[in-house]
């Protein structure tokens, strides 16, 4: 039961991430930043949800909505292009914003 819900949550989170990343590529350097920040806040909020549904939402939906692998790959590509400023600012905004929003979500969680 719980594995099924985690699978569904993962599929939904990954699909939203893929769609946002594809749609935002044209006008934003990376859609990864946007989905990561939203997922951090959502995960913090979802810590207040108990039980199987809470696990599916935290591990599945918000876990799969965010990604370290794409962020690391994009920063690696910036470093390979020797664009150190963009790499550092992307990493800094991602981590600073993500941790801050996760903390805010934790504080606001029911």
């Amino acid at each position: 039961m719980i594995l099924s819900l985690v699978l569904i949550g993962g599929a939904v989170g990954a699909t939203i991430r893929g769609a946002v990343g594809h749609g935002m590529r044209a006008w934003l350097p990376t859609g990864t930043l946007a989905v990561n920040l939203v997922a951090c806040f959502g995960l913090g909020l979802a810590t207040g949800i108990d039980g199987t549904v809470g696990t599916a939402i935290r591990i599945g939906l918000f876990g799969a909505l965010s990604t370290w692998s794409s962020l690391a790959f994009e920063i690696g590509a910036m470093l390979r292009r020797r664009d150190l400023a963009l790499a550092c600012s992307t990493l800094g905004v991602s981590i600073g914003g993500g941790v801050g929003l996760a903390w805010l979500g934790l504080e606001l969680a029911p």
Partner: protein
Amino acid sequence: MRPTFLGLIALGGAFGTAIRWLALEAAGAGNDSVTVFALNVVGSAVVGFLAGSGFSGTARISQTIWPLAAIGFCGGLTTFSGFALQVADNLDRGHLASGAWLTIFTAAFAVSGAIGGYLLGSRSRMAT
């Protein structure tokens, strides 16, 4: 955007997420940080390897491999929000050093893994 593109991402994402959940369950309570760190580094290295191997291009096989394995599976296997929540929780409890080390190690190893994977993939592609 092709429907199959999103379908492949959903399929890969579901399995990557399931493996992350199973790994967290197997590692047991109290080992979440180490487990998430390891998954984030491995997933980043695999995405780098796939890109270096040429699967992020426009070739027909890439249109299946990249959304399924890179965007879907590795995206689901790794989690930025889980990492951020662990750091926020450490900071909230006053464990500043733990939060700082988790941040530094994850960022350094994930980015190094992605670059190393890319170089390894590029090298293996040139060798074939």
